[in-house]
C-alpha cells in the first residue's frame, strides 16, 4: 500500500507539472484584448504589456514564474482584476467564504441525501420510492441557479426570513452570518441531496437483495440491524468516495450561486481570470485546483483500501 501510494504521488507531481506548463502556455496563446486605436491609453497599455514580458518566449516567462514561486512563494501580481495586488493574498482571502458555504451545504446534504436514499430503498416499489425517485430526477435535472432565484424570491423577498445577500465580514460563525448563508446553502444542497439519494438507493437496493443479507436475517438480526450493520456498510464503498469528492468540491465554489447571493468567494475567479486574461490569477487558481483534484483522486483511491478490506487484501497480492 505504501509503495502504491508513493508511486501514485510521484505520478501526481509529474502530471501536475505537465498541466501547469500546458495551462501557462495555452492562456498566453489567447490573443490579448485588442486596444481601441483612438484611446489615448492604448500606448501605455502596450508599453506595460511589453514590460510585463508578454512578448518574451513562453518558456522564459515560465521559468521566471517557477523561479518566483519556488524562491519567494510569489505567485505574482494581478494585472487586470485586482490591479497590482498579490494574487496569493486575494485567493486565500476569498477561500473561506466559499469553504464555509459549501461545508454547511455538505454537512446538511449528506445525511439527508443518504437517509432519503435508505428510506427509498427500504420502501422499494412503493409510492414513496416512486415519489423520491421522480423527485430526485427532477431536482438533478434543474440547474442550481433556478433554485437560487426561487429561494431568494420566496424566502428573502416574499417571506423576508433571510437577507438577500450573504453578510459581509469574516464572522463566519455568528448567527447573522449563519442566517445569511441559509439561502445559498439551500440552493447548493438540492443537487447534492438528490445525488446521494439516488446513489444510496441504487446501491442499497442491490445490497438488500444479496444472499448475505438473507444470511444475516436468518442468524437472527432484525431488519434494521441487518441493514445498518451489513447493507449500509457495503453501500459505503461507493458512497464514501462520493463524500470525499463533495468535500474536495468545497474549495471549488459556484460561479452562479456566489454571484446571486453576493458571496465573496473564489467561484468564478478562474473564469474571470480567463476573461480578463489575468495570467497570474489564472495560474494560481489552476495550480490550486489541479493539485486538489490530483490529491483527491489519490485519496479516493487509497480510501477504497481502507473502506473495503477485499481491495486492501487484493493490493497485497
Amino acid at each position, binding site marked *: 500500500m505504501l509503495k502504491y501510494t508513493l508511486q501514485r504521488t510521484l505520478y501526481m507531481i509529474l502530471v501536475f507539472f505537465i498541466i501547469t506548463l500546458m495551462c501557462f502556455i495555452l492562456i498566453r496563446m489567447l490573443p490579448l*484584448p*485588442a*486596444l*481601441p*486605436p*483612438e484611446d*489615448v*491609453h492604448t*500606448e*501605455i*497599455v*502596450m*508599453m*506595460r*504589456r*511589453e*514590460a*510585463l*514580458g508578454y*512578448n*518574451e*518566449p513562453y518558456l*522564459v*516567462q515560465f*521559468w*521566471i514564474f517557477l523561479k*518566483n514561486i519556488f524562491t519567494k512563494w*510569489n505567485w*505574482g*501580481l494581478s494585472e487586470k*482584476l*485586482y*490591479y*497590482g*495586488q498579490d494574487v496569493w493574498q*486575494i485567493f486565500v*482571502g*476569498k477561500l473561506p467564504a466559499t469553504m464555509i458555504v459549501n461545508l454547511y451545504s455538505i454537512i446538511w446534504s449528506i445525511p439527508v441525501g443518504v437517509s432519503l436514499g435508505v428510506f427509498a430503498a427500504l420502501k422499494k416499489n412503493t409510492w414513496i420510492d416512486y415519489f423520491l425517485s421522480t423527485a430526485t430526477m427532477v431536482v438533478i435535472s434543474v440547474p442550481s441557479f433556478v433554485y437560487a*432565484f426561487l429561494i*431568494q*424570491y420566496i424566502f*428573502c*423577498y416574499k417571506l*423576508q426570513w433571510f437577507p*438577500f*445577500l450573504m*453578510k*459581509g*465580514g*469574516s*464572522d463566519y*460563525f*455568528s*448567527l*447573522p452570518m*449563519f442566517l445569511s448563508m441559509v439561502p445559498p446553502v439551500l440552493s447548493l444542497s438540492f443537487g447534492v441531496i438528490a445525488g446521494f439519494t439516488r446513489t444510496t438507493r441504487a446501491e442499497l437496493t442491490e445490497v438488500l437483495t444479496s444472499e448475505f443479507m438473507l444470511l444475516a436475517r436468518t442468524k437472527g438480526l432484525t431488519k434494521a440491524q441487518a441493514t445498518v450493520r451489513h447493507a449500509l456498510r457495503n453501500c459505503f464503498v461507493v458512497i464514501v468516495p462520493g463524500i470525499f469528492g463533495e468535500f474536495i468540491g468545497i474549495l471549488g465554489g459556484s460561479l452562479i450561486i456566489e*454571484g*446571486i447571493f*453576493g458571496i*465573496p468567494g473564489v467561484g468564478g475567479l478562474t473564469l474571470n481570470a480567463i476573461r480578463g486574461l489575468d495570467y497570474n490569477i489564472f495560474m494560481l487558481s489552476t495550480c490550486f485546483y489541479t493539485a486538489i483534484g490530483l490529491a483527491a483522486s489519490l485519496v479516493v483511491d487509497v480510501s477504497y483500501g481502507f473502506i473495503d478490506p477485499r481491495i486492501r487484501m487484493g493490493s497485497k497480492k
Partner: protein
Amino acid sequence: MKKTLALLLAVVMVLAVLAGCGPQGTTEPTGSGTEGTNPPEGTQGTEGTQAPEGPSTYTYNDSMSSIPANWNPHTYQTSDESVPLDYTIDGFYTLFYNDELHPVDGVDPYAGYQIVPAMAADFPVDVTEEIKAAHPEFNIPESATSGYAWKFQLRDDLKWDDGTPIHAEDFVGSLERVLRPELLNYRQSDYYNGSYAVANAKQYALSGQPVFQSFVDMGTTYADYLANGGSDEDVVLDMNGFWSVKAADKRDFGYITDDTMVRDPAVAEGEDEDYVSAKYLWDNYIGPEGYYGSQNSAYTDTYAGTVYYPYEAGYSFDNVGLFASGENELTFVFKNAVDGFYLMINALTVPLVKIDLYDSLLQETETASGSIWNCTYNSNLQTCASYGPYKLSDYQTDKSMHFVKNENWYGWNSGIYQYVDPEDGQTYDMYQTTDIDIQYVQEAATRKQMFLAGQLIGYGLQAEDFEQYRSSEYCYATPGQAIFGLVCNGYLKVLQQRESAADFDKTTTDLETMTVLNFRKALAVSVDRDLMAATVSPARSGGYGLIGTVYIVDPETGALYRDTDQAKQGLCDFYSIDVADYNGDLDAAVDAITGYDPETAKELFTQAFQDALDAGYVTDADGDGKCDQTVTMQYAISADSDFMTKTINYLNESIAKCAEGTPFEGKIQIIKSAPLGDPGWSDAIRNGTADCVLAGWSGAALDPYGFADTWTGENAYWNAWFDPTAVEHTITIDGEEITMSLRDWALCLQGEMTVDASGTERNFGYGQTSVDNRLTILASIETAIMGTYNTLPMLADGGMSLLSQKVFYVVDEYSPMMGRGGIQYMKYNYDDAEWDAYVASQGGTLQY
C-alpha cells in the same frame, strides 16, 4: 456504552456549534452610525424626521455589479473603478445650481449653474506673460499673451482624512508620480494628451521612448538616405499606417529586415496575405522592388523611415509645467492655450495622492523582460486616503464598501456647501447623506427585489420593467450622450475581395450594393426611429442627428447644442423639411421630423437597383424587374443578446416592408456576425469585414466640437473608404463664403490654424471666433457627415430608473452638467430608523 458515548459526543458537538454562533466583534457595515460620522453642526434633517435617539443617520444604499478593486487615481481604468473617487476626492472648483446664494443673471433658479472655488481659495490668475519671461523651458510661444500659464491659490485648511495637511507640493509630487516613466501608469496620458496637456509632461513620461519618423517627415527620400550612408538595417516600415497591422512587438512599425509574420485580421485565415511581415510588405509593395516602389510611388517615403528618440532620456521633471509657487500656491503651464472657464471645469479633478502612503506601496516585480512597477494605493481600507467629503470606513473585496463622513474635510466648516431649497426657500447644508453603502449585487432581479424591499436607493429599469414602472412618479428618465447610427459598410475594395472568396455565391448574394448612395438613403428612410426605440429599447428614443441632446455649446450660459437654431436648421436641411411650411417655426419643423418615409424609400430602392445594375453589382437575368441577388449585410455584434436579436429583427422587418413592390422585395437581409468581442466589432466595421452596426460616440458634455474631429479623423468608422480631406465644403461665416476640406474645417474648429481654398489662414477655435460662428460650422459639418450616409442616425441613448421613496431630488429636471444634483443635493424623507419602520409598516414591500 458505545451508544452513550456517541450520544454524548453528539450533544457536545451541537453545544459547540451553538456556542460558536454569536457576535465575533466584527462590525455590521450597513446602516451604521459609525464613530466619528456625526453630521457637522448646522446639518439639517428634513422637517419631521427626528430620530428617537442620537443623531440621525442617512444612508445612501447603492449596488454595483463589480466592487472596485483599484481606484488609484493614477491607474484606475473603468468608470466602475472610479466610483469611490466620486466620494473621496475633491476638485479645485465645483459646480452649484444657481440659487439665491449663487445667483446667475438672467437665469431662473436651478435652471443653470455657477462655478465655485472648492479646494482653490479663489479663481485662477492668468500669468502667461510672467511665466513666459521667467521660464523659457516651458516653450510658451512668443506671440502668446494669455491662456498658457495659470496660478491657483489653494485653501490653507486642506487635509487628508487622517488630519495631515495638504500643500501645493503634494500636487506637484502627485503629478510627478503619475508621469514617472518607469511606473507606466495608465492615467499618465491624461496629462500629456488633449486640450489640457501639461507643458513638457509628455517629454518626461515618455523619456527614452522610440518614435517612427517617415522619410517625408525628415524632408528626404529613401534613395537619398542610402546615398548619404544610411543602412537598410535602420529602416523601419509604418506597418499600421500602410497595412493596418501591428508589428510582432506590438508597435506600429517594424524593421524592414524583420520577417516575423503577424496576422492580418482583415484577411480570412488561409487566404493570401493572412500573415504579413515588415520584410514582406517592403519586398512586395514599398521597397524598390515592390509594387509601389518600382513605380517610384510616394508610398515608399511616406511609410518608410527611421526610428528616432524625441523624448530625451533622463528628462527632468523640473521642466514639466507644474510647480509650487508658494506653500499653498500652484502654477500650471499648459502645452496649448486654455480658456479659464474650461480650465476650471476640467481641472475639477487632479491626480492627488498621499505621497508617503503611495511610496510605501510601490513595488517592483521581476518579469520575463526585466521588471514592472505596481502600486496598490487605493485598493482597500488600509491603502486608501481621502480628501473629499467622505472616507472609506469598511471594505471587503468583491463584496461591499462603506463610506462615512470625512470629519477632516474643509467643506463641513467652510460655509461654502450650502443651498437654498427651491421649495421652502430655506438654507440647508449640502451632503445630508451621512453614510454610503455599496453592495455587490450581480443580478438585476436581486437588485429589483432589494429596491422594492427598501434596501436600495435606486434601480435601473430593465426591458421587462418599462411597462409597469415607466409612468411611476418615482421613475426618472435620463438622456444619454450617444446617438446610435446604423454605420453602413462602404469599403468597396474589401466587399469585392469578400465576394471573390471561393465559397461566395455571387448569383444569389451581393455585398457591393450596400455602397450605392440611393440604397443607403432608402435604408435611412425605412425605419421609424421612435417605434424602433419603443420596440427594442424603451428607455431610448429616436435619434435624428449625430450629436445628442446633452451637449453644451456655451458653458457660460449652459446652452444646449440641439436647442440652437443652427443645429435645428441642419436637421431640417438633411431631412428636407422646409421651415417655411411651418410658418418659419423652426421648433415645429424639427418636431415634424420622423425620418420615416416608406414611399420615398420605395422610390429610392428602385433607383438604387438601377444604379447597382448599371454598376454591375447585381443582375436581373430573367428580366422580371427583380434583383437576382439578396443584399446581405452582416451586423457586427460584440456578444449575442436579446437586444441584438430584437434590433436586427426590427430592422429586417422595417426594410422588408419598405422594399415591398420594389426590385429588392425580399432581397435585403441583415444577419448577425459571430460574436466579435470588444473592440473586435468596431475593428470589423473599420476594416470592412462586417457591414453594419448601431454605433456612436460620446464625449465631454462641454465639447460637442470634438465630434467634428472624430467624424473626420483617422478613427472614424468610415475612415478606410471616406476621405474627408478630399471633400471641399463651403460655409458662410460672417457673410463670407469660406471653402476648405471637411477635415480642415474640423481641425480649425479645434483651434488648429488651417488654410482655406483662397489661401487665407483660418482658426475657429474657442475664443478665436464667436460661439455663433463655431455653432454654424459644427452644424454644417454634422449635416455634411450625415449626407455621406456612412451612418444613419437611429437611436438616442437613455435610461430610466426608479428612485426610492426614502429620498428625493431637489430638482427633477435633468441637466447635462449637474445631473439632478447628485449626492451633494440629495434630500431624505426618512432617516434610517424611520425608513426601516416605514418599510415594515408597508409589509416589507413598497409600491412604486
